[in-house]
């Protein structure tokens, strides 16, 4: 077929005029009716007296805030999530460095080993930790042998265990973010620093670390949000001794049928998540970009 220039022009014009925007409609509509609308529907219960209740103003918020149990839930959640995020960043950094520096043959294996736990599912890993930390598990026997504990003990059921387990469970995400950022570093900057006589320690703190600070901060705020969101680890490793917000939301909505309470807790969770992401971004922008400019 011979195309005249006018026909070619027509094709080009029609291509420009007709974008296939409507193809996105089903996806956008499903997110709208399955996420946006339901979340709004749930949140409005925070100002109601019950499932079929009337307007209650801010009473639900004051009731929840005054309850010492929920006060503890929120404090525990924030503390555990924060410690998890920081621990996760510190512990993941060497793994990310190791992956980045690995030879071409080892690297894919290491990446696979990092990602498999993430994809295997969180419940499975919480169950594994229950077996390791529980009564008559290996850690309990070890602690007995070296005289840390008198008898067989369940070493889960405390905030430290929950934090540690959450950090290992969420680490793959941190490692992936840090690895991506480390790969993007211009190797010449490292070589320049070393050839100018900086020690490796100095090179790390003044050249490598500043260049990954963006990933580090987005990673920390992301892990914080994911730790708040976790249901299985607090429930299985923490139990009733480490009350956290996700199990509390489940309990309020599915067991107590106290939707207003559930809505208030949900708002608490969303607000903490937004604040964390906001602070992460703000701190990063103000402090770390200054730091970056100063040291680079």
């Amino acid at each position, binding site marked *: *077929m011979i*195309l005249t220039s006018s026909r070619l022009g027509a094709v*080009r014009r029609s*291509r420009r005029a007709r*974008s*296939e*925007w409507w*193809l*996105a409609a*089903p*996806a*956008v509509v*499903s997110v709208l009716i*399955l*996420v946006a609308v*339901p979340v709004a529907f749930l*949140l409005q219960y925070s100002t109601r007296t019950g499932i079929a209740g009337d307007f209650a103003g801010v009473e639900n918020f004051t009731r929840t805030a005054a309850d010492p149990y929920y006060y503890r839930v929120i404090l525990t959640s924030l503390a555990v999530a924060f410690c998890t995020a920081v621990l996760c960043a510190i*512990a*993941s950094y*060497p*793994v990310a*460095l190791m992956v980045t*520096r690995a030879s071409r043959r080892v690297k894919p294996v*290491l*990446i*696979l*080993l990092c*990602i*498999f736990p*993430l*994809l295997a*599912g*969180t*419940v*499975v*890993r919480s*169950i*594994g*930790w*229950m077996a390791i930390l529980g009564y008559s598990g290996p850690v*309990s*026997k070890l602690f007995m042998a070296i005289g840390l504990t008198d008898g067989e003990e369940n070493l889960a059921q405390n905030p430290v265990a929950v934090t540690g387990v959450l950090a*290992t469970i969420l*680490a*793959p*995400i941190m490692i*992936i*973010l840090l690895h*991506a950022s480390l790969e993007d570093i211009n190797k010449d900057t490292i070589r320049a620093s070393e050839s100018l006589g900086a020690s490796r320690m100095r090179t790390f703190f003044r050249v490598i670390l500043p260049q990954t600070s963006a990933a580090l901060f987005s990673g920390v705020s992301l892990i914080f949000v994911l730790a*708040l*969101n976790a*249901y299985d680890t607090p429930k299985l490793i923490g139990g009733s001794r480490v009350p956290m917000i*996700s199990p509390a*939301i*489940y309990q309020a909505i*599915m067991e107590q049928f106290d939707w207003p309470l559930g809505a208030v807790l*949900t708002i608490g*969770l*969303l607000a903490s*998540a937004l604040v964390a992401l906001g602070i992460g971004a703000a701190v990063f922008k103000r402090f770390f970009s200054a730091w970056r400019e100063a040291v680079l």
Partner: protein
Amino acid sequence: MRRRQILVRVAGTAFLVLMLIPILAVVVVSLLDDAYIRFPPANGFTLRWFAEFWTTGDLGSATLESVRIAVVATVISLALGTAGAIAADSLRSKRAKSFIDTFLILPLLVPSVVIAPAIYASGFWIETNTQVPVLRSGVLLFAAHVVITLPWTYRLVSAGMGADLRSLERASRSLGGSRWQTFRSVTMPILRPHILGAALFAFIFSFTNLEISLFLITADRTTLPVALMQRAIFEVDPVLAAAAVVQMTLVAVLMIIAGRFVGFGSVLRK
């Protein structure tokens, strides 16, 4: 200089081992011939827990249910995500494109313990007010799985689109190919590996999801992660470990297949 390399390796390996050790623990418990966890183990190895897993409680049926939900959710999510990706790619306005980008990632950005109770509460309200059994029939369970896998299918298919695809499509159209011909013989072959990769990852994320299912399961429909969770609240026993191993094995197999189509980096890189 050497010393710091070693330090990084030791610290890195140690933490990697900590990440993998719970998986190893589950595998070991599922293979030991002890009815409860004891250390050191007393009775050697067996495979009988895997046979028992099919017949004990609802673990076997929950596994089938999880597979069913994941298959349906993947197919629908893939159709919606691919269509969305094609639409976003065809848009000229940057703002409209970034609107679709952000909107379709919402199910990933909003914590699932917020989405799940929200869908449950809405479904409950619809059910009591209109008598349409959206919760009891499991429709919302399937729909929720579609929506939470949507960000992955959308992103992974989008990642496969670039300037090359667009110019090849334009070439096909200007040579007189119809829209359908272009889609079938140009767009699809280029996108196929990305679509396959997206399908496998969507399946994995639906199959292992706990929080969404937890709120939306019905009396006769429970998923494997929820069944694992509910049994684990009381105790970790070898049958439970066997079920966990089944879940992990399926994920491992799919992951290896998926790795052939898309790089893992492109899946999880934000």
